[in-house]
Structures are given as C-alpha cells and as structure tokens.
C-alpha cells in the first residue's frame, strides 16, 4: 500500500475533462447540473469543494468517486478512465476510495461496529474487529459499538460513517460535509483526524463543505457555481474575501 501510494504522488489522483451531468425530472425536463468541469487533484493533496445548496456538489463528488455515471466527459481516478469501465471494474477501482455520504447511508440493520467492520471484511482483512474498534475509538464512539444507527444521534451516525470510510484505508477519501452535524469541538477533532490521515498516510482528501474554517485548512479550494468549477487561488491572509469572492 505504501509503495503504491508513493507511486501515485507522482501523478494526478483525480482528473476530469469536460465532465457533464444532466438529469431529467418528473416532467422529463432536462436539468443540467454539471456543465463541463475540468480539474485535477494530485496525490496527497487536500481539496475542498464549496458552493451553494443545490449547486451540484454531492453530484460531483459521487461522480468523482465512481459511484455514478457521467452524462458526458471523462474522469480519471488513479489514471483509470471511469466512463470506459464497466460497473464491475469501477467497483474494483473504488476499493481504494473511501466515501462519507451527506446522509451517512449506514446499514440500518447492522450495529455501529458491524457497519465499520463491513468494508474490512469485504476486502478480506482478518483483523477486522480490532481495526473497526480502533477506528470507532478514534472518532470517540467506543461506548456505542452495539448501537444501531437509528439509536444514534445525527452526529454519532456521521462519525460512524467517517470511521467506516477510514477503516478501508483508502488512497482517496471523499467526504460530503463530514462535519455538518457536529458541534465545533467534535467537528474539530474529526477535522484533525482527517488531516492527520492526509499527513501520515498521504491520503488524498476531497471534501464538500460549507464550513469555511475547514475549507481554509485544505490546500486547494474549488467553488461550484452554475455547473462550473472554479479554483480559488490560495490566499491565506484573506480567507473572508475568498469566501465572498467564491459566492459572488
């Protein structure tokens, strides 16, 4: 894993070319959510995607992670062109990807521990239980192992989802508003966890967030507006301005 991780540092982990996503609503009206997106994220980088509600951030993130199919354009995940892969091959590619859903998407009928164990078991890890416990401990949930998702608070569910994404030891971690439901203290510790992963394991981070503080800690920031993605040039001294600029 370490060898391959250092391999990818030389290349882009994610690259898109003229990526578009169009959906139709109940009246068969076409809705263009993404209208040609070109960008690239290199291995080991951390990136934030910002944008107003309904701008298409979640849609973009799902496409980047290979969970959905683009309408046109291309995505390279670890230099593999996703649109040319079959769903089965995309699943293969996803084994190096962790994903935290905006709506958590925990398995309702499995306990917190079992939820976190699942990706480890699927990848054939024999030490799945210990690792799952460790990750739940890391997100501060060692006392909630046997709880079912519906017995957990929103923030707790979010942390289980994060532990589950971390547990797979991903090369790229996509997180859709990972701190959206957390108080500032807990949020902060989760953010610390994310960046320590980024620092220690070289995990690439792609985060969707409304939280400027979180966005500021990322190396790169992108704004999604009117189906287009614009990168905000790094300006550490004036974070407020960048935010305003991005929204305008």
């Amino acid at each position, binding site marked *: 894993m370490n060898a391959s991780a250092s391999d990818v540092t030389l290349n882009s982990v994610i690259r898109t070319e003229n990526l578009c996503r169009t959906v139709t609503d*109940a009246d068969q009206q076409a809705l263009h959510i993404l209208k040609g997106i070109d960008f690239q994220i290199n291995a080991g980088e951390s990136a934030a995607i910002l944008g107003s509600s309904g701008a298409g951030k979640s849609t973009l993130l*799902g496409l980047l*992670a*290979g*969970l*959905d*199919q683009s309408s046109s354009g291309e995505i390279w995940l670890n230099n593999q062109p996703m649109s040319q892969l079959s*769903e*089965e091959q*995309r*699943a*293969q590619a*996803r*084994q190096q*990807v962790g*994903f935290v*859903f905006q709506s958590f*998407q925990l*398995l*309702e*009928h*499995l306990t917190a521990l*079992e939820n976190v164990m*699942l*990706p480890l*078991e*699927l*990848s*054939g890890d024999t030490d799945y239980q210990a690792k799952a416990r460790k990750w739940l401990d890391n997100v501060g949930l060692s006392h909630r192992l046997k709880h*079912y*998702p*519906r*017995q957990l608070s929103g923030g707790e569910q979010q942390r289980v989802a994060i532990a*589950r994404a971390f547990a*797979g030891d991903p090369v790229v971690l996509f997180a859709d508003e990972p701190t959206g439901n957390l108080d500032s203290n807990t949020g902060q510790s989760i953010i610390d966890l994310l960046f320590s992963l980024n620092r220690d394991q070289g995990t690439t981070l792609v985060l969707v967030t409304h939280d400027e503080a979180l966005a500021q800690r990322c190396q790169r920031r992108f704004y999604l507006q009117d189906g287009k993605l614009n990168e905000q040039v790094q300006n550490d001294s004036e974070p407020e301005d960048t935010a305003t600029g991005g929204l305008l």
Partner: protein
Amino acid sequence: MTTAVSERSKQGNKVRVSSWQMAMRLLGREWRSGDLNLLAWALILAVMTVALTAFLADRLQRGMEQQAAQLMGGDLVLRSPRAIPDDWLDKARTEGLTVVPTMEFPSMVASDTGFQLSAVKAVSSGYPLKGQLGLAASMEDLAPIDSAGRLPVSGEVWVEPRLLSALNASVGDEIEIGQMLFRIRELVVKEPDRGGGFMSFNPRALINFTDVPATQVVQPGSRVTFRILFAGQPDQIDRFKAWLEPELEPAHRLLDVRQDRPSVGTALDRAQRYLQLTSIGAVILSGVAVAMAAARFARRRQDTVAVMASLGHTAQLMGGIYQRMLLVLGLIASLMGACLGYVLQASGISLIADLLPVYLPPASWQPWLLATGTGLLLLMGFASAPLMQLKQVSPLRVFRRDLDMATPSSALVYGLALVALVLLVFWYCGDLMLTLWLTLGLILVLVLSALITLGLFRVLKVVGPRLPSRPRLAIRSLYSHKQTALPQVMAFGLVLMVVALVALIRNDLLVSWQQQLPDSAPNHFAINIQPYEKDQFAATLDKAGVERSPLYPMVRARLELINGRPALEMVPEESREYNALHRELNLSWRSTLPDQNVVIDGQWWDNESLMTLPASKQAEGQGDQAGQTIIPMSLESGMAEHLALGMGDQLTFNLAGYRITGEVVNIRRVNWDNFQPNFYVLTPPGVLETLPQTLLASFYLPEGNRDLVPELVRQFPAVSLLDIGQILAQVRQILEQVTLAVEVMLGFTLLCGLILLLAAVRNSLDDRLREGALYRTLGASGAQIRQIQMIEFVLLGVLAGGLALMGSELTASLLYRNLFELEYSLSLSHWLVLPVSGGVIITLAGMWGTRHVIQLPPLQVLRAG
C-alpha cells in the same frame, strides 16, 4: 379518525368529506409515485387468482353435477313405494320444474318360447331428463345410438338385449307383461340413470307410463318403486324442496343431486372438496401477497405520516386518509381482477374445450360476487393492520428514527388476517369442519414455523462468526433482518405449502380413483351359482382366460330380531323403511378382512379372538334361545348407522325358518365404489357352511370376448349374469371428468403460486437493493455481493421449503383423514422436492430482482429505492 373529528368538532362534516377527497387526490399522486404499484398489482393478482379458481371451480362443479344428475335421472328424485299425490307434482310444475314420473316393478315377461323375470320401467314423456337413452341397431351391433328423445309409445316395449336372449325372442315379436301384449320395438343398451337401480339384477323392459294400468301387474301390496324425476334451476329446486320436505312420509326418499350422490359419490365428494381446497389455497396465497405488499407500503409511508403529524395533521387523520385511499384502490383492483380472471378462465376453457369429456356449463354470477368480495375482505384482513399501525406513528419519528411502527400489534396483524381467512374459508366451502381443520392446520403451522425459524436464526447467529467472510456476512445480514425475514420466510413457506398441498392431494386422489376402477375392473357379475356347479363354472371362466374374483359363498337371510326383539321395533323410526329390513341380506364368511374394507370399530377376528368370545355372553345367548351358539359378526358401517346398531348388539337372522344369532364384534367401512362383491354381514368360517347357499363371482370380459356370455347362459341356465359395463363406463367418464378438474385446478394453482411467490420475493427486495448498493460503495466486488445475496436467498428458500414441508405434511395428515377419507402416508419425494424447489425458486427470483445492484452505478440504485 374519531379523534380527528372531535378535535375539529365544528367542522366535523367537512373533515369527513375532505378525508375522502384527500384520499382520492392521494391515490392519484401515490399511483404516479409508483409506490402503490406493488400493492395494486398484488390485489389485482389476488382477486384474479381467486376469480379464476372460483369461475373454474364453479363451472367444473356444475359440469360434474350435470353428470351426476344424469346418473341419478334428475336434479331431484323422489322415491316412493306408493303413488305420489298429484298436487305435489302440480306444485313442482308451478315452481317451474320439469317433472317426469316413472315407476319400476319386477314382473314376469312371457313370449311364445319362454319367460323371464324382468325389471319393468314405465316412463312418461320427458324421460330421461338428463342424458339420452342408447339404442342398438341389432343384436349383432350393440353400439349405442342416441334415441333422440324418442320413447316407447303405448303398446311398445323396448328391452335390454339379454332379455331377448333369455326369452329366445327377437325384435318385432310380441311379449306379455301381466295382462297386456307389447311389441318389441327397440334394444336398449344404455340407460343414463341405470346406476341408481344397480341392484336390480333383472333385465330391463321399458314401457310407456300410460300402459301400466292395463298390465294389471301393479296391485295394492305389490313391490313398486315410483321415481319422480325433477329438473330445474337450483333456486327452484330449493324452493320446491323446502315446500315438499314437511309433507314427506317416512316411506319417501328425496334425493338431491347436490347432496345424495349416486355410486360415484365419494369421488365427486372428494373432487368437490379438492376444488374448494384449491380455491381456499388461492385465497391464502393472495392474502400473503396482499399482506406483504401492504406492509411494504405502510413501511414506506411511516416517514410521510410522521412528517405530516409533526406539521399538525395527526397520524390518526393521515392513517384514515390512507385507509380510504386503499379502500378505493381495493374496489378498483377487485373489479379489474375479477374481469381479468373471467377473461382468462373463459379463454383458457375455450382453448381446451376439445379435450374436455363433456360440455362445461357457463359460469354463474356467484364467482363475480365471490371474487370482488374476497378482494375487499382480503384488503381488510391482510392490509388494514399495517395501515392501522400507520395511525400510531409518532411525530417524534421525524427526530428519532428508532421509533418504528408499534411492533407488538403484530398480534393484530395475524389476528385480523386469521379472522379474514376463517371468514373467507367458511364463505367458500360453507363447511364448518373444513374451516376448522384448515384453520387449525394453519395456526399450528404458523406458530411452529415461527418458533422453528427463530430457533434456526439463533443457530445461524452462533455458527455465523466462525464461517468465512461471505457466508458470515450473508448470515449476519439474514439474522440482522430477522424482523422482516421471519414474516418473509413464513410467507414464502405458506405459498410453497399451499402449492405442495394441492399437488400432494391431487396425486393421492388420482391414485385412489385409478385404484377404484382399474381398466380390468370386473364388468360382469355372476350370481346364483349353485354349490354343485361352482367348480365347473370357475373352470369354464379360467379356460376362457378370463380374469375373475374368487367364488364367494353367500347365504340369504332376513334380519328378524335385534337383541331378541323384533327388528322393526328396535330400529329408529326413520329407519323403518330401510331396505335391509325388508329384503333378504347377503351373509358370507371370511377368515381375513376383505380388500378395501376398513375396520372402524372393534377388531377383525383372528383364531385366538374366536376362542375368547366372552363366556357370559355365550351363556346369556344360550339362555335366551336354547340350542343356539353366538356367532361373531362383522357389520357394514352404513347399515350399522342406519339401524343404530353397535358393538355387542345381537342379531338374529332367519333363513327359511332356520335361525342363527350372532353378536356384532366389529364394524367395517366398505368401499361401495369399486364394484367388487361386498357383504353387509360377515362371519368367521365354520359357521354358515352347512346352510343352503349360492355363490357369487365377478369377472372382467374384454370387449372382444362377449361370446362367452351366451355360452355361460347355455351351460349354466340357473346362473344370473349381470353386465355392469354400462355403469362402469359412466362412472369412468365421471372419474375422468373429476380428474381433469383436479388437474386443471392444480395447474392454475401452481401458476398462481409461482407468480405470487415471485411477487412476494420482489416485494421483499427493497432493503436488499439498498444494502447491495451500499456494499458496492464500500468496494465489494460483484462476485462478492452476488455470492452473499445468493447464500442469503438459498437460506431463505430452503428454510421456507422446510417449513412448507412441515406444514403440508401436518395439514395433509389432518385433511386426509377428516376430509378425503384417504390413508395418509409421508411422501418421501416431498422431503427432497420442497426444500430444493423452495431454494431454487426464491434464489432465482431474488437474484433476478437484485440484478441491478451490480449492473447499475450504486448511486442510481440508492436513488431508485
């Protein structure tokens, strides 16, 4: 609902109206959203299945009734030893019934060259009410030709061919019946209602009803049977019957084709029960489908109701609106289902019409009512419980997802379903026994299967963690879904069970019918064989290579005393006219129990029990009538029942002045349907041998070997030969008909069961689809997911198959004895077939239903769910 009204008491009316309006609006919206599709289809399918089976059963049953009516002579037959008052017949005519009086009496018939005792039957115009007389062209060509409604006119006699041989006469000759001369005009080879008079061994002479007085044979006190045949619509029959019954005297016997089946009685009875059972099976299948669909719908609407409740519209109100919506949906779906069922049934029958042995009458209006009514009842019984639970959803569920719908009321779910089921079953068969047995079987199966499934889940939970990852994950998934998996397993199991039961009973019914009348069933009886000629008679048959029964000895005697008192005084009043009291009965002796006889009370004798007949009884008997011994006797169950005789009763028979007394030591049920020689009373060997006796045999003559009959007649003039080939052919035709009915119903049940099973599996896939997609996002490969799912489906299917096995064996063992009077034996093939087919069908259906999980991007699957 009531709370909602009282909360807004001022606008009570308005709320009520707007609830309906809301319901209609919602129906349109829900329909478009697609969530109602499954429920609507389940209902339509359910009602269609019920309608289909109801229409089919109705038509097949009416077809069978027509056949039976033919065998009996009419829909309703009144038998009497005396003339029937004219006003009874007038009453029948004013009710719109067709009335045909007939009468039968034995009489000597004489020609120039001989005489013969014959069974004269006088018929009036309209005879036969059902079917046709079959006439032969000549003695050489006995193939039946339809009489086309013709009857003997005054002065004519139509005769059975063997009467001609006995009289040595030919067509065109004159014969004398009593004081009147008749000219022989036709040869009768087929008489549709002959079956009813099977016991009249003498050859038939058919004359016109108006000629009876002129013969002067019928005098006060002579042996005459009037048979008045009635035909008409069931309601006309019922009205007339209701009027007539209070007028009847003990000597009268009223036979209704729907209740008093002629000699194929048990076959028809069983077939009818089978049809009922399959219809009920269809109802159960449909109930399962509707219940699953409704539960799914309610599950998916919990959030809606919770949110609406949090916005100030009580769950009560919302639940009420959903209930109304469902009622409207139920009405529409029921009507659609009934129409579909009708069309399918009509086209299905017209497709196979050429294969049917007889014409099937069109369906009546009842199935329409039955099907739509069933749809609504199903909806109320199986769908309203989940929706009632919707009313209990707490608005807090919006915040706390663990506030699931109240589960304790699963008692309500099963309770309501059970009540609906019992009502439906009773409605279908109008038979309390059947209802009780089925309900009992079902409850037993449900409770047992729930316990067993839960137990197995526990075992799986313990075993699971030690297994490799894929079975481990599959088992964990199954176990963690136990709340939904349990009803699923039970539903699948129930569907399989119903289908298995229907198939199982069909097999055994067909086998029992084939056994009843094998192709080589004896078609001739020889009676009055004298002891001195018995060896020669047997040798003659054997030389001709004819398959024959042993020659049974038989002693004819009249039942004189019961427990030492005159028999007529001892029997119940209504049995005074019972035939067995007024004619000589056949007694015979056996050391072993005859084939197809079952001892239902007491014990068959073996050598030891013969020795140990209670001494006290012997002494008592001897005290009563000195010089006589008490003989153990075995009594036929029907006679025992009619004459209210039981174990230990003493019977004294009179045999031309010679008395023998015996004690009933066992009661036998005799199969009268198999046309084998049967005896009312049997004794052990060594008792009757010294008494005057004749012998009786039955044998099978193939179509081409009829020349033997004239030879037998010549060689053994005293022996009476009786050709029952005609009756056998009729019975065979009826058996063929019921077999077909059973096969058709089985086919449809299999088909409906399969469709409903597929629908039920499809219905259970929501969670699996979502979870499959989530596994997918976690990097599971297609092979991994499919294998995990497959293991899960196989487990579910095998479990369901196992439950079906247990359930069908259990229910079958209850039903067989109590309904079909069949011996029940475990069927080994089921033990393999059911779990395997359960596993295969559910796995295939499940895998098919979840195939998108690995074909579509996971986000698309998640969004579609």
